[in-house]
């Protein structure tokens, strides 16, 4: 009935919307959590650098142009996948998704894992329209998070963040998106309950590299994954953030892992620490030729 469902031996069930190809639901234990995931972009502020308030978005500052686009909402790259294919096997089920000519992704559910893996590929970001772009991905749930989200402190403890609020100075609301962005060194987390000790339903997104992140709407995890900008922000680097590889814009590829834990899932929230450590201290893999003359028989 319009859904494609796959599951693993750990009891994780992933449901896709067959029409759009997007992620629809993740089931873990008795929790059935609607989760949508898509890619979006903000237009980078062009500015003219003559005043601080008119600086361009660049290497030093994230400055989405929220007057040019729809307020503080990023623009979705598509509302329906160009194509997707599902591969099933003994170890992993993979969904190969093509969003646009410059964004694709593989969603993976390994048989003995409680994580859903997202391997995204973004670029070269098109700038022929004269606008630099800040590309984000959003994991959207209906969770009532009351503006609260958590980001880690260089892999150590989680820091509580609250939308449109700063602990040590008044929130200006002048640049709502940029002012709500925080560093995400290893993971970002949203929970239905404000204090993690209560063990409420929790969504953790772990990343393979430091990124910027926010939660501009309740229930959302938003991570900035690629930027291609065509103006220097005049803070000193003297170059726009416009890396050219092989004569084209840079292509980036990386991973996110989604962990649904806490109340009703059978997985403690503390599991995020173990997973983050596994990602940071990844296995070392080396290869050696096993030709007969290189090896002795036992």
């Amino acid at each position, binding site marked *: 009935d319009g859904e*494609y469902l796959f599951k693993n031996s750990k009891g994780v069930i992933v449901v896709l919307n*067959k*029409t759009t190809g997007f992620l629809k639901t993740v089931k873990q234990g008795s929790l059935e959590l609607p989760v949508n995931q898509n890619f979006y972009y903000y237009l980078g502020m062009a500015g003219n650098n003559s005043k601080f308030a008119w600086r361009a978005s660049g*290497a*030093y500052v994230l400055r989405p142009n929220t007057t040019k686009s729809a307020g503080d909402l990023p623009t979705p790259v598509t509302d*329906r*996948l*160009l*194509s*997707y*294919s*599902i*591969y*099933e*096997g*003994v*170890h*992993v089920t*993979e969904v*190969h998704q*093509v969003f646009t000519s410059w964004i*694709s992704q*593989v969603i993976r559910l*390994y*048989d*003995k*894992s409680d994580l859903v893996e997202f391997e995204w*590929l973004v670029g070269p970001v098109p700038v022929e329209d004269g606008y630099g772009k800040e590309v984000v991905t959003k994991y959207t749930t209906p969770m009532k998070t009351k503006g609260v989200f958590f980001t880690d402190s260089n892999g150590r403890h989680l820091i509580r963040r609250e939308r449109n609020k700063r602990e040590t100075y008044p929130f200006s609301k002048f640049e709502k998106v940029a002012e709500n962005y925080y560093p995400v060194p290893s993971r970002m987390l949203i929970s239905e309950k404000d204090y993690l000790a209560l063990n409420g339903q929790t969504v953790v997104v772990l990343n393979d590299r430091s990124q910027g992140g926010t939660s501009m709407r309740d229930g959302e995890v938003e991570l900035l994954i690629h930027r291609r900008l065509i103006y220097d922000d005049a*803070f*000193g*680097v*003297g*170059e726009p*953030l416009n*890396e050219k*590889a*092989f*004569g*084209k814009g840079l*292509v980036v*590829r*990386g991973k996110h892992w989604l962990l649904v834990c806490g109340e009703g899932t059978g997985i403690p929230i503390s599991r995020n620490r173990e997973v983050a*450590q*596994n990602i940071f*201290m*990844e*296995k*070392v*893999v*080396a*290869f*050696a*030729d*096993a*030709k007969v003359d*290189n*090896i*002795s*028989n*036992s």
Partner: protein
Amino acid sequence: QSIIDEVWNLSEPVAIVQHHDAITGTARQHVTDDYSLRLGKGMESCEDVINKAFRKLQPAVSLVSSNVSVPNLTSPYRFCHLLNISSCAPTEEMKDFIVTIYNPLARDLHNEYVRMPVPTPGWDVYSQNGLIQTQIVPIPQSVQQIPGRSSTAFYELIFAIDILPGLTLTNFRIIQNLSSPTNQLNPVFTGGQANTSAAS
């Protein structure tokens, strides 16, 4: 002393990229390129150390089913630097090789998976207990078309490790077998705009 020098070849560039422009990406492009070059050279230097360490730490066991005694391996270890674009020269060039996997954590890893890019779909993988289950998946077209990617790998070979104790090595032998069944290569479902008549 020579091993300490080899490790220093990496720790020095790692120290250099602690600079705030390197950490945040606010260095000019040619400076960033130089950081990458230094880190790359340092990593290669440390691979020599890992090569020696892996030989020293090899468990005194054989891969029984394939009649291989790994401690007597004489060929040097090779490493993959381009796994982020599903490219790996050693696994693309060799047809019979040993994969040594090290768990750098001080605790056990359970239910881990190993993925490696390969040029053909048919492969047999042996653990210490014999032939194990594998899966092959195609590498997406979008990855194969990354500008500058020069690779013969069209597939990824996947197998599982049930348990890998902390600070421990394990070995697998991988042998090309072109007659292995490859029925998992076909998608079980396809969809999207490109598959609708309107799009075409």
